[in-house]
């Protein structure tokens, strides 16, 4: 099947963005990542007007939904390119844009440093040996699966990269530490930061729950983190 791939391109933050279109003639079972990989292997790469253009900048690593690198807006919805298949999208025109909540670097690449910085600001590490309760094994395991891709922040009405609110990604990752840390001073520090940087900013829209590309039990982890950090349970 022939698809029209519309890509929003931008050389740097300072330059203007523009749309570029490509034709992709391939299986409807291809993932968007496969399409991008195929486009960039064309020598030379030509757009639909026949102009030779530079390869498309995008981030990818594992190609099998394990690393979170390839998060982008696909038909205006944040998803991972590696696990979004053409046949699941409506129509034969597919639009690709960078995530909008993070500073743009180039084309489909954005600077997600903020995600990682926020976990540091929340003191998310253990100072004691991990307390491993078999009762909470499953949610702690789920908490550790987070890909740090940023899809949940893209849809969050309360998140923007320059505000204090750290977003769901913080609550999801906080759970395992809140549950495993045995050092009470550190636990209190995390709880205090958690209240400031997550609990007080979350409007409970839960738009983050359905968007997670690996289907993490986001709502459950959020409720559990709130219980541990705010209600002392």
């Amino acid at each position: 099947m022939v698809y029209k791939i519309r890509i929003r391109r931008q050389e740097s933050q300072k330059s203007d963005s523009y749309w570029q279109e490509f034709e992709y003639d391939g299986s409807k079972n291809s993932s968007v990542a496969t399409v991008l990989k195929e486009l960039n292997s064309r020598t030379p790469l030509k757009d639909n007007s026949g102009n030779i253009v530079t390869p498309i900048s995008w981030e990818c690593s594992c190609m099998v939904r394990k690393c979170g690198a390839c998060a982008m807006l696909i038909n205006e919805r944040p998803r991972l390119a590696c696990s979004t298949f053409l046949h699941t999208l409506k129509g034969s025109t597919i639009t690709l844009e960078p995530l909008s909540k993070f500073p743009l670097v180039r084309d489909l690449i954005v600077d997600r440093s903020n995600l990682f910085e926020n976990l540091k600001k929340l003191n998310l590490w253990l100072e004691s040996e991990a307390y491993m309760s078999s009762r909470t094994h499953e949610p702690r395991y789920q908490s550790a699966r987070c890909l740090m891709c940023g899809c949940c922040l893209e849809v969050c009405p309360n998140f923007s990269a320059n505000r204090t609110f750290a977003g769901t990604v913080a609550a999801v990752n906080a759970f395992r530490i809140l549950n495993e840390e045995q050092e009470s001073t550190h636990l209190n520090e995390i709880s205090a930061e958690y209240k400031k940087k997550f609990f007080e900013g979350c409007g409970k829209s839960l738009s983050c729950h359905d968007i997670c590309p690996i289907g993490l039990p986001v709502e459950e982890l959020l409720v559990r983190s709130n219980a541990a950090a705010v209600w002392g349970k």
Partner: protein
Amino acid sequence: MSKTIIIIGAGLAGLSAALQAAENGCNVKLVSSLPSERAQSVMAEGGINAALNTKDENDSPEEHFTDTIKAACGLADPNAVWGMTQAAPELVHWLLKLGVKFNMSGYDDVDLRNFGGQKKKRTAFAQSDTGKQIMTAMIDAVRRKEASGMVERFSHHSFLTLRLCGNICCGCVIRDEYSQETVELPGDAVIVATGGMHGLFGNTTGSLSNTGEVTAELFRLGVPLANGEMIQYHPTTVKCGGKRMLISEAARGEGGRLFAMKDGKQWYFMEEKYPELGNLMPRDITAREIWKVSHESEVFLDMTEISEEIISNKLSGLADDCMTYLHKDIRKEPVSVLPGIHYFMGGILVDEQHRTPIQNLYAAGECCAQYHGANRLGGNSLLGALYGGRVAAKSACEQADVVELSCATQIDVPPASQISEIKQLNKVMQETMGVVRNENTLLNGIQTVQALTGNLPLLGMAVLKSALARKESRGAHWREDYPKSNDDDYLKTTVARFDGKQIQISFVPVPERR
């Protein structure tokens, strides 16, 4: 003043080295083109080997040592392997304290599963995404060191070249991939932990960001490559998105069976040919058998006999992957598989302490040749990365000399390889470095690669010449024109070295067990 250790790569080996170096009081500069969450280590599925003996099978680190050396067909440094296998149980207990959610059994024992080439249950695991679970805990631990200032991350930075003063390394040059700015980074030691040479082939099970460019640049600068021809084909992979997707050995460890169709019936060829280990023979042998049988019939991995309880508790990630990418419910139907390139046993030449021949330059993880010889046991890669990173960091912190760069730095960074040249290189490498090799195709391959320019083709050439020079079959290197192994000439490490003009191949003895 404390030493500055630069670590290139923030996957498992890099993080392990960072924690150890910080523990030893060194300042760490951790350089990586992508965040740790994107490293290939998160793709490791099956588990990590350690003779924890929680299954009353009378297992011991000595047996882990014996199995590793046997699978390596004699090419691994026995002293290094001894150190790793002895340290393994303590390392897994340390990971538990860091919060890794290993599957547990009984009251509080680490659960263990069967893995290829090992008769006893020795592979600790967290479902079928052990690498991801270990990485999350390691990232959490390194975050603490970042907050205390011991570890400084250089995210979105790529390695360009070393700062060299003769044979002494005193830092490196990196580039900010966001701003394209070049940064000179002085340091007392550099530890390279940049993963395997997957970019030579372009269609492996590995990460697309493991291009092999760092190894290629080091090779150009004269750092030798060891056992470059020893490339592991994982027996069970599936074509997916222009590369290969792995179906973890855990599938067979938990009861998955390989079969082909013969005379209209299912033929369980591994069970018939190898009654003792069956579907769990070492990877080199299993991959070769599948490759042979696949000329006559499609080969399938049948997981339909595995119980629902095991699938949901131990293989849920694998089942999800097959559903998402292959549209197959492993509970209901077998999956068609073929061998695919998975791991590079060979790489940067290091000694037992992970030193390269360049002073103050170390290497750890898949980018170096250590622990696995001619064939790696499943479950030994996470272990090798974790242990090797520690050893490299200890050596660096203890031994690195503080060198003030006295000679004028000549930093010439070669231009990146062209896409069209890499495509040609990939094609040659795929065609010549298959499960089975021979002189004719290798010579043809060498001729084609000779016409290509740049670092990656140079590294590819070193791999091809290593494969040509080893005129025998051993482990992952199978020559149909020399089907027997020849201990007299080749129970040795292949060393490829670039002198600025030519690639020289030599064979050096494997160290003896102390």
